[in-house]
Each structure stands twice: as structure tokens, then as C-alpha cells.
């Protein structure tokens, strides 16, 4: 499990965090662009278009307006009083990304990228999806803007998340089954990259996390950091001060980076990313990249990767499809090395217990991904003082997981 670095001896980032990535997309020694030549010009075009859009007040205003009137932002920061009492430690606040339209934070990014695609004159978008939340969010943004949308999804994930498959189809998207490899998120990304390589002139690839080649890790982080900007303002208003610790689950790492990024220079705020411990780290069946992974190059970026000694990518396991991925966003690898963000993991079982706990104490059914963050709060909050504040990102709601949880418990619906 993660080394616990106390904030007192935490080395400071050498530069302001916004100094990363550099122009070529490197976060320290991580990140970059490792893709076939066919895609390189498209990535340069995308980086240029994004830089221009980001500097354009009208584009930013358009994104903000849609986040407000369509997504439902700002999402509330909610004081979880009964959960706080039950755990008997730090005051726990939940950032309610589960209340976003479509039920998760993913739409913060897809609205931004779909508007960018429109600006670039691309009429078709593609996406990969694991849990289905990013696919649904992409299908939604495409319906909103009248774009053609194809979503790649592993057949294993399609079985686990049948409800989201149907939602995407209702929204007018085509769901393309991927039966290669482990039939999960990584294979869906391979297939989406192959599609993009073939249709790059007419298509924009809406990548769903802080992964892949530059500019995706930076761009997705920027679109998601609305979470942290709001949360920072809200906690100061509610409690009169900054939180002592932030907790978020880390699959590719977009909800966590979105929450953490605006707090990076607040040196006294601890940040903890929670990876999927699956059946337990010692079983080898997990998705905790920082537990047993090492630096590698995978799907366009250099970062921590779960791989065998030769460098073949390992198949991961998690009860949560959204965390079931072999690599982690390159910016996470940088802040892990700098000891600015700590990483730990919780098992499937702990996440399932947290799923029940939050449902019963607060009347909020969390996504299984977000239940990993709650599960770590269960460990951490009791060790903190009662006057301290723990802010947890509730990245998504659990409606999509209800069927699977019933199945795991042997209940037929």
C-alpha cells in the first residue's frame, strides 16, 4: 500500500504546478506523445485548437454556461453528518459530482471536448468507456450538439454495465463491442485509437480521462478542475478554512485530478488517491498501479503501468469497471514521485461495505468507483481529530451499479 508521507516532511513541488506539462506534454519524466505517426499531426492540431479555445473568453463562457444550465453546476458540497458521527472522527464533506447530469463527473469533460470538436469542424466523435459513464456523457454531449457518436466498449464491461449500454443507445450513440484482449477499458481505448487513426480527418476522439497522449492529460484535467475550484470556494464558505485532507478514487485519474489540482499549492492540504485493490494486492488481481506497477509506455503516454517483467500489459481486476485499467494518468505519477499526492488502495470487499454504509447512513447510493473513496474515508476519518475536515469526491452515483451489486449478492431482480 501507499507510503504515508506526512505533510511536515513533504518536499515542495519545485515549480508552480501549472508549469506542467511542458510544451511537448511532459509532466517531469512522464507523459509525452507515444502514438503512431498518423495521429501526430492530429494531436498537434488538437493542442493548438485547445490552446486557442482556452484563451478565448467566449469559449470559456460557453462551457461555463452549459455547465450551469445543462450539467447543473455548481454541484453541492454536502456535510455528511450521519457518516461523520458513525465514523467518529474528522468532519466529512462530500463533493456531490453524483448530482451532475448523467450521474457522474465525466460530463464536465465531454461538454468541453464536444464544444471543442464543434469549433474544430469535426462532425463525428468517438469515445472509449469502461463503466459506461464516460460513454453516456459523450453520447449526451453529442446529442446536445448534434454530433455523430460511436462509443467503444469491452464486451466484459458491456455485460457488467448493461444499463449504460442501453442509455447510450437511447441517446442516439452507436456502441461498438470490443472483444479483444481483456475485453475491458484498455481494449476499448486501443480500438478507439485505431478508429481515430483511420478517421482522423473527420473525427475527434473524446478521451475520458487524464490519460493518453498530450494534450489529453492536460485538457481533461483543465475541464475537470472545475470540481476542485468549486470545492475550494465552497469549503471556505462553509467551514471558514481549507480541508485537512482530500480523498478521491483513481482509475485513469480524472475526478481525483479535477479535485486535487486547484489545491496543489495549498501545502497543508493532504491529498490521497485511492486505487482499486481488487481481491487484494497480494493476489495480483487488482488495479493498483502505484502498488506493484512501474514506469512504462502505454496508450500514448509514459506513466505507471501494471505490466509483466517483459513489458506486456497486465490484465487488471476490480469490481468497479471504471477503475479497472492498467495505467494511471501521467500527472499522477509525477505528484506521486514528488510525494505531493499519496496513493493507497482498498479492496473490492471494502468498497462494497462502503457502498452499503453510505447508502444507509446518508441515503446516497455511490458509484462503485466512488465507494472506493468512501472506503478510504472509513479508514482515515477515525484517525483524524473531530475538528479536522475530510473532503471526499463523490464522483458518481450508483444507479448504474445496482444490478451488478444484486448479482454479486446472488439476488435476482
Amino acid at each position, binding site marked *: 500500500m501507499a507510503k504515508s508521507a506526512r505533510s511536515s516532511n513533504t518536499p515542495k513541488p519545485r515549480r508552480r504546478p501549472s508549469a506542467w506539462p511542458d510544451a511537448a506534454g511532459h509532466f517531469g519524466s512522464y507523459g509525452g506523445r507515444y502514438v503512431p505517426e*498518423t495521429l501526430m499531426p492530429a494531436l498537434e492540431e488538437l493542442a493548438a485548437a485547445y490552446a486557442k479555445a482556452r484563451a478565448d473568453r467566449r469559449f470559456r463562457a460557453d462551457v461555463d454556461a452549459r455547465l450551469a444550465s445543462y450539467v447543473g453546476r455548481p454541484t453541492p458540497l454536502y456535510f455528511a453528518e450521519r457518516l461523520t458521527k458513525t465514523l467518529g472522527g474528522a468532519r466529512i464533506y462530500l463533493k456531490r459530482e453524483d448530482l451532475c447530469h448523467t450521474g457522474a463527473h465525466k460530463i464536465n469533460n465531454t461538454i468541453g471536448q464536444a464544444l471543442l470538436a464543434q469549433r474544430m469542424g469535426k462532425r463525428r466523435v468517438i469515445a472509449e468507456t469502461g463503466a459506461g459513464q464516460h460513454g453516456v456523457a459523450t453520447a449526451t454531449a453529442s446529442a446536445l450538439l448534434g454530433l455523430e457518436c460511436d462509443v467503444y466498449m469491452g464486451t466484459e464491461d458491456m455485460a457488467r454495465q448493461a444499463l449504460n449500454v442501453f442509455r447510450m443507445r437511447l441517446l442516439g450513440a452507436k456502441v461498438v463491442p470490443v472483444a479483444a484482449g481483456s475485453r475491458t477499458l484498455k481494449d476499448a481505448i486501443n480500438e478507439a485509437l485505431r478508429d481515430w487513426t483511420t478517421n482522423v480527418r473527420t473525427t475527434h476522439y473524446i478521451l475520458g480521462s487524464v490519460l493518453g497522449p498530450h494534450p489529453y492529460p492536460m485538457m481533461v484535467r483543465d475541464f475537470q478542475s472545475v470540481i476542485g475550484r468549486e470545492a475550494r470556494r465552497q469549503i471556505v464558505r462553509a467551514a471558514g478554512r481549507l480541508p485537512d485532507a482530500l480523498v478521491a478514487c483513481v482509475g485513469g485519474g480524472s475526478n481525483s485530478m479535477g479535485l486535487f489540482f486547484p489545491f496543489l499549492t495549498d501545502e497543508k492540504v493532504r491529498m490521497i488517491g485511492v486505487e482499486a485493490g481488487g481481491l487484494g494486492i497480494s493476489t495480483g488481481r487488482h488495479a493498483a498501479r502505484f502498488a506493484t506497477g512501474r514506469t512504462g509506455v502505454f496508450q500514448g503516454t509514459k506513466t505507471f503501468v501494471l505490466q509483466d517483467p517483459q513489458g506486456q500489459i497486465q490484465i487488471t481486476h476490480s469490481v468497479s469497471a471504471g477503475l479497472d485499467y492498467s495505467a494511471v494518468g501521467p500527472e499522477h505519477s509525477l505528484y506521486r514521485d514528488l510525494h505531493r499526492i499519496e496513493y493507497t488502495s482498498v479492496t473490492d470487499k471494502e468498497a462494497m461495505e462502503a457502498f452499503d454504509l453510505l447508502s444507509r447512513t446518508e441515503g446516497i447510493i455511490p458509484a462503485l468507483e466512488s465507494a472506493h473513496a468512501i472506503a478510504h474515508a472509513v479508514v482515515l476519518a477515525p484517525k483524524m481529530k473531530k475538528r479536522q475536515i475530510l473532503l471526499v469526491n463523490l464522483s458518481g452515483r450508483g444507479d448504474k451499479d445496482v444490478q451488478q451489486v444484486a448479482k454479486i449478492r446472488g439476488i435476482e431482480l
Partner: protein
Amino acid sequence: MRSAAARPAEATANRIDDVFARLRGRDEKALIPYVMAGDPDVATTEEWLLAAASAGADLLEIGVPFSDPLADGPVLQRAAERALAQHVTLGDVLGLARRVRAKTPIPLILMTYYNLIFQYGDERLARDAAAAGVDGLIVPDLPPEEADTLAGATRAAGVHLIFLVAPTTPPARIAAIAARASGFLYYVSLTGITGSKLPPLEEIEQRVRAIKRTTRLPVAVGFGVSTPDEAARIARVADGVIVASALIKRLQEEPDPSRRSSVLTAYVASLKQALIPR
């Protein structure tokens, strides 16, 4: 591309340069067939490589299987899966290269994805590849921007790092890639993955001519070439033709494994015929 790279050391003789020079003198074009190492097993791959060399191949491209080959179409994906089921490693492929090198002077090029090289170690791989008699590397997910370390290592070892140029590559970028390339430039004939359908041949001809205006390096064309006619047409402008998916598909379609070697020999010979001036 941050720094202008030095051209490869002219002093280090490389079999790839020799072959292209020799063929140019005969107005002949290079045939570069591709075989996936370990599909169906390493011994068979060795047999096929030697058969291809005897049947007229001018250079041999050996695939090193990777779990997530994102530039490859279904034919090469499945070939990699079959090879990985045999647990073939980069080390095994270097051993294969060494055995082939002991029997023939034909240039050998390894093609693999960067993570396998990165885990092996860029410098160690360049050294071991050179020692095994490997002459070039093709790494489809390593653009020149990220290739400084490997390019330095291969240059020092006298191995060519071969870069790709795509139909989407703009002229200024072609020049920048050519400035860092050695051995030859690999022109990706189509906007897509390996084994897809070729675009109109006029388009390929036009692009290859444009590339040749910016570099004196040989240009080989691959990704969708399958028939001798296509090869002949492309050879009018290019210096070489790479055939991968189409070859593997033909081998897979032959139900009798004992006949596959002769299928390969006949196909390679027919392609080579198309590259010799009449």
C-alpha cells in the same frame, strides 16, 4: 522536435544501406516481408524467414509480439496473440535473429512497440540487437519527438532507427522526420491501421514523390500492400515494398500447416518478380 539530430555515423556500415545501394544499381526495388516471431512458434518463424530470404526477399522484418498493438489491424493483432500464447519475449526474438544471421547476410529489422524496448533498456537493446546481427528497428508508437534516447543508442550501436511518415504528415514535418531518420523512411500507405484497404495508387505515388523530394533516404511503402500488381505500381516511385498482413493472412488461410512454407515461398517470389525491371 527539439534538437536537430546528427546524421547516423557514415563510418558504421549497415547491411540495409548496402542492400538499397546494390538494388539501386540494378534498378530493382526491395521486397520486405514481415513475419511475427513466435507465430505459431519460434522454430517455424526461423524456417519461414529463411524461406523468404531464399525466395527473393531483400530485407526481413520480424515482429516482436506486444499485448496492445494499437497500430495494427486484426490480422497482426491475432498473430501477436498467438505468439504471446507461446510466451515469446524480446530476448527470444534476439536469439532468433542471431540464428538467422548465422545462416544469411540479409538485413534484419525488428518491429515492436516501445514499451518492450523501454523495459529491456534502450541502450542494452541497441547493443544486443547489433550483436545479434539486427540492422534496424521500427517502433510504430515512438515518434521522433520521444526517440532521443533510443536514437542515440541505436546510432552508437550502428543500428538504424527507421521512422514512419503517414499520409497525414505535413511537408514540414516530413522534412523534420527525414532529418532524424536513418536506413530508410517507412511510408504508411493509408490513413489507418495495418492490413486496411489501400487508397488509390495515384495518391500513394504522389506522396512518395513528395517525400523523395525532401530526402535522399530510400522510401519503403507498407500497411496495405497485398498483390504483385500493387507492389509493381508502388515500386515505380518507391524504393521498397513492405508486405505484412497480406502474407500472414495467406499463411493462415492454408489449412495444412506443412504446406505453409511453400505458400510463403510462392507468394514472396511472385511479389519479388513484380519488383524486378523487365
